[in-house]
Structures are given as structure tokens and as C-alpha cells.
């Protein structure tokens, strides 16, 4: 599709100006010559009409949750309620300056305070910080405060235990926190191997980062043992909350002994994914760790009868971003929790677990599951048996697009020997049975196509605007801006059909 720069026509404007441009103030008198860019910086020149048409067209090249099922495992692509969007966008919230005097922003502070109370109850933790902007950001925050905790105690701990099934952000965050990563193998049940864990845990280890249910969608029943193993050696237990959608109202990480918890508000709590954010990765801790949280927290001063910012104190790890948090995401989260209440939070998890097990039951004869057992809110199937027809799991995923579906998560998690050629399917509670039935039928159809007509999969997708991108070429030519493209114009030699579609 043509770029905005290719639609640019000199003289077109998409903005308006007030009549009073303060021409009585002469820029040459206000700023030294060598600070000012003489020439205008060339962006683009299009009208408002052109912009509306351009982005309307571009939007149609995307697939959103409103378009249909997004069975991405560990992403929890659930419905984004419209009332939450409206309330987060209220002028009193969206136009509040973060440094306004606190008497002017009591409403904003109340939102954050109330959310903390609700999240503590839902997770069994004692205090949340709303600062982290994403799950990975939350992991880093949690790791840094765990680090500070041990430094404060005078203990030198240099290692972090992470299961082989963990999401890539876990080891990446641990490394950013200055720790060496020790990988713990999963056993044949798909859960943490307790013997390996016991051997690896010592007084030089900070602790374990665990997702529960884990990334293959299984609730690790070994959690009681795990908690003992880690705490016995003075370690801390970190909970990656990406999969909390299987636990609402059923089980709480705080009760299971986790010391630090991060939540992905843009997963479990229905806030939009936005094509890659903004989300929020709030962190909850047990009381011992409160002194290390990033500063400030929101508190209620009963003498002054107002909400205030409270400095965490000298042991705080400091700040991990500017200002207080991804506020609009927090509003949406609060709205969702208040709309569901305890009864429906439970129903949400219950339905997500039923949905995933239903798909598992109906597809296990066609796509061998990684583990032969009931799953949590997501199931891990594999595309292994289609290898003999020359079909890769990637091709199954691409063929799904021809039937109007976004593919599930593929090739993650990946650990030998069970989690290989994985297809991880998470149908959140906002997907009704008939959607699942349609998806199941299509997956079965594709499994037949893989045997009888593999070419259909190898050349898929067919109905999307583009098909099978050359990812190696992208790295080789390194065209990352329109100016890069212009510099390579002759080599690229695009035709009209190449660009205008």
C-alpha cells in the first residue's frame, strides 16, 4: 500500500492555525541564529481528507479482536469493553497533569488507590506499585527490588532460577538485573522438575521465576514443594502473572507463597493490546518487600482526608519510569473488575479453562497434545505429525488465515522433547461455544488438507493483502525509513503493482 509520503502534494495542509500568530514577537530576536533550523523539516503535505482515507485503508489491513477469534496462547486476547474506553477518556482524567497540586487530582489518586485494594484482594498480595509499563518492565522492577532486599540483608546472591518453559522476557529481565540465569528443566508432566530445582537452589540464588499455570498451560501442582524449596534456602518466589486468567477467584499467588507478582493488565484485565501496547505490568509484593518498591505510592491521609503521594523511603529502588503509571490502562482495569465482581471474575476463569479443554478434547486426535492431561486456560498441541507430509507448523498457521482466523502462538514454548512444533491455543472467556466449534472444524479441515493437498498450506495465505514476507531480505536491505527506500530506489525497482494494492 502506498506510503503517506507517496501521497504528499506540496501545498496541502491537514492542520489549522489561529489568526493571532504572535507575529509581534520576532523569532530572530528571541533565539540565536545557530539554534534555529533554517529550512523546514520535510515531513509530508497531505490534507485532512487524505489522512482519513490513508489510515482508514491501513486499518483494514489489520485484524483485531473485534474481527474474530485470536487464539494466541499466553496473550489472553479477550474483548475490550467499550464503556472502559469511554471512562478512561473522560476529560478530567485524560487532561490531568501529573504534577498538578494534589487537591486538583483527588479523583485520579482515588482510582489508583482503589485499584491497589482490589488487586491485593484478587492476588493475595499486600501492596502494588502501578509504575511498570508492561510485563517485562514489571519483571525488571520485581527483580531489582529482590536484588535490593538481599543487598539490604547483607547476602550475596548472584543467580536466578528460571524454567526452560519460561517466556523470553524472564531470562532477559534477570540478566538486566545483573543475575546469572540457571535453567531448570521441565519433567514429563510439563511442570518444574522438583529434583533439579532442589539441587539448583542454594544460598547464592535469589529464587525462582515461575508462571503458573505455566507457558504450556498447566497448573504446576508442585507449587507447594516449590515454595518450600525456595524459601527454605532464604530465597524469594516470583510470579509471572501472564497466565492469571486461569486463576481468578480460584487460587491466588499470594496464598501459594509468592513474594513478588506481576500482572499483565492488557491480558487478564481486558485492557486493549493496541498492536503492541500500551499495557501495564503492575507489581504486587508481600509486606517484607514493601520498603523496596519504586517510589511513590498512593496513600490516604485520614487527618487531611485526602489521597496523597507517599515516599516509599530510603530503601526504595528509586523510579523505573517518569511519573506514576499508565493511568488510562489503570482506569480500564478498575472498570473491568468493578463490572465483573467476584462472581464473574470466577466465571471468566472458569469459562477460559472450559474453552481451552474443549478445544484440547476435540483436536487432540488431529494435533497431538504436548502433554496428555487436562490443561488450564490454554492448551498446547503440536503439528509434529504433519512433518511427514512436508508440512511445517508455520504453514498450518498461515493456512488458518485463509479461513479468517488469526493463528495461535506457534513455536513457543519450545523445549525438547515435548514442546516441539507447538501450537498454543488460548480461547478466552469472551469466546462463545459456536466460535470454538467453527475454529475446531477449520483446524480439522486443515489437518486433512495437510495430507491430501499440502500445496494449499505451502502457498498460504491466499486471501490476505500480502503473503509470505521475505524476512531475510528485510535484514539484508535494512530499509528502515522512507529515506532508506529513496536511497535504494534503483536497486528496488518497484512496479506499480508492487506498491499500489
Amino acid at each position, binding site marked *: 500500500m502506498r506510503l503517506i509520503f507517496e501521497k504528499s502534494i506540496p501545498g496541502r495542509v491537514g492542520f489549522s492555525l489561529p489568526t493571532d500568530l504572535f507575529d509581534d514577537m520576532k523569532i530572530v530576536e528571541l533565539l540565536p541564529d545557530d539554534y534555529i533550523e533554517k529550512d523546514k523539516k520535510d515531513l509530508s503535505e497531505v490534507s485532512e481528507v487524505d489522512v482519513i482515507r490513508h489510515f482508514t485503508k491501513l486499518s483494514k489491513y489489520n485484524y483485531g479482536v473485534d474481527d474474530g477469534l485470536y487464539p494466541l496462547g499466553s496473550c489472553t486476547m479477550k474483548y475490550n469493553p467499550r464503556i472502559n474506553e469511554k471512562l478512561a477518556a473522560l476529560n478530567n482524567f485524560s487532561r490531568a497533569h501529573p504534577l498538578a497540586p494534589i487537591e486538583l487530582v483527588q479523583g485520579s489518586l482515588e482510582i489508583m488507590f482503589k485499584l491497589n485494594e482490589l488487586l491485593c484482594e484478587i492476588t493475595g498480595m499486600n501492596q502494588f506499585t502501578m509504575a511498570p509499563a508492561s510485563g517485562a518492565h514489571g519483571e525488571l522492577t520485581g527483580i531489582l527490588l529482590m536484588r535490593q532486599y538481599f543487598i539490604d540483608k547483607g547476602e550475596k546472591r548472584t543467580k536466578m532460577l528460571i524454567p526452560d518453559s519460561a517466556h523470553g522476557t524472564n531470562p532477559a529481565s534477570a540478566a538486566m538485573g545483573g543475575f546469572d540465569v540457571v535453567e531448570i528443566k521441565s519433567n514429563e508432566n510439563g511442570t518444574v522438575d522438583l529434583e533439579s530445582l532442589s539441587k539448583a537452589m542454594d544460598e547464592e540464588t535469589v529464587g525462582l521465576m515461575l508462571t503458573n499455570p505455566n507457558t504450556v498451560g498447566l497448573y504446576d501442582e508442585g507449587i507447594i514443594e516449590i515454595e518450600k524449596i525456595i524459601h527454605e534456602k532464604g530465597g524469594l518466589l516470583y510470579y509471572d502473572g501472564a497466565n492469571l486468567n486461569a486463576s481468578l477467584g480460584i487460587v491466588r499467588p499470594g496464598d501459594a507463597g509468592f513474594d513478588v507478582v506481576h500482572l499483565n493488565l492488557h491480558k487478564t484485565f481486558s485492557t486493549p493490546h493496541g498492536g503492541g501496547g500500551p499495557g501495564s505490568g503492575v507489581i504486587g509484593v508481600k509486606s517484607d518487600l514493601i520498603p523496596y518498591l519504586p517510589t511513590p505510592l498512593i496513600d490516604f491521609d485520614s487527618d487531611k482526608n485526602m489521597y496523597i503521594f507517599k515516599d516509599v523511603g530510603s530503601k526504595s529502588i528509586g523510579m523505573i519510569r517518569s511519573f506514576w503509571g499508565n493511568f488510562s490502562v489503570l482506569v480500564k482495569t478498575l472498570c473491568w473488575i468493578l463490572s465483573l465482581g467476584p462472581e464473574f471474575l470466577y466465571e471468566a476463569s472458569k469459562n477460559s479453562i472450559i474453552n481451552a479443554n474443549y478445544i484440547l478434547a476435540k483436536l487432540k486426535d488431529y494435533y497431538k497434545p504436548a502433554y496428555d492431561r487436562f490443561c488450564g486456560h490454554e492448551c498446547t498441541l503440536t503439528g509434529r505429525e504433519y512433518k511427514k507430509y512436508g508440512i511445517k507448523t508455520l504453514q498450518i498457521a498461515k493456512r488458518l488465515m485463509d479461513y479468517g482466523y488469526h493463528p495461535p502462538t506457534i513455536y513457543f514454548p519450545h523445549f525438547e522433547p515435548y514442546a516441539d512444533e507447538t501450537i498454543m491455543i488460548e480461547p478466552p472467556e469472551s469466546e462463545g461455544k459456536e466460535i470454538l466449534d467453527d475454529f475446531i472444524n477449520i483446524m480439522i479441515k486443515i489437518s486433512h488438507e495437510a495430507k491430501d493437498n499440502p500445496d494449499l498450506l505451502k502457498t498460504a495465505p491466499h486471501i490476505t493483502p500480502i503473503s509470505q514476507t521475505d*524476512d*531475510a531480505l*528485510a*535484514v*539484508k536491505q535494512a530499509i528502515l525509513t522512507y529515506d532508506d527506500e529513496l536511497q535504494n530506489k534503483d536497486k528496488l525497482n518497484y512496479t506499480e503493482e508492487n506498491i499500489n494494492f
Partner: protein
Amino acid sequence: MSKIIENLFYSKNDEWLKDEGNNIVVIGITDYAQSQLGDIVYVEEIKNEIKINKGDVLSTVESVKAVSDVYSPVSGEVVEVNQKLVDEPATVNHDPYGEGWFVKIKMINPEEIKELMTSSEYNDFRKE
């Protein structure tokens, strides 16, 4: 089935070694390694004349979906580097045992070759 050349030596990390005599060896990665990586888009430059120990990371090979470290199977000094891989990293895919060589090393401990696998041992090791 991936290609294995007979009179080369092989490491568990899928590097091959060719003994050119005079304690000079040529190092590269095997056909299996390049096929696992997919289209190679970048090979991290190796500095000439550096001293290296057996097991140290020589270079990093990057494809679109993966990154792999290349380890030195022997200790010694790098005496020649294949500059072709800087501009044409895909050479490793096309000709892993020929033009896709990485470095030449002057060994300080020739006994280390004995710790590597022969072509038939590597064949068994990598049998799928």
C-alpha cells in the same frame, strides 16, 4: 539428510575443523548447523591475531529467527579471517564447508584435535 565431509573433524556444537598441516586448522560450521539456522543474515566479525582458548566464542551467527554462537574447538591464535562473510553472510548457507569458512587458527595444542569427532562419529551424533 545434511552433508558431512569425510576427512574433517567435528565438534558437538556443529563446528568442523580441517587440518592443513603445520598446526594450521580451518574452522567453519556444518551443513546441519546452517540448515537449522535458516537464511543467515549476519556473521559477527572476528578480529585477526586474537588469542583464543578451546571453548571460547569465536563469533555469533544470526539468521532471521535465531542466533547461534560459534565456539572454537581448539586453542591458539587467529591467523586469517574470512572477510567474505561480512558482506555475504549467506555464503555459509550455500557452501558451509568451502567458501563459508570462518577462520584459520594456529594451534598451540594439536592434541586437542583428538577430542573431536570423526565424520562417521558426527554422522551418528546427528542422525535424526
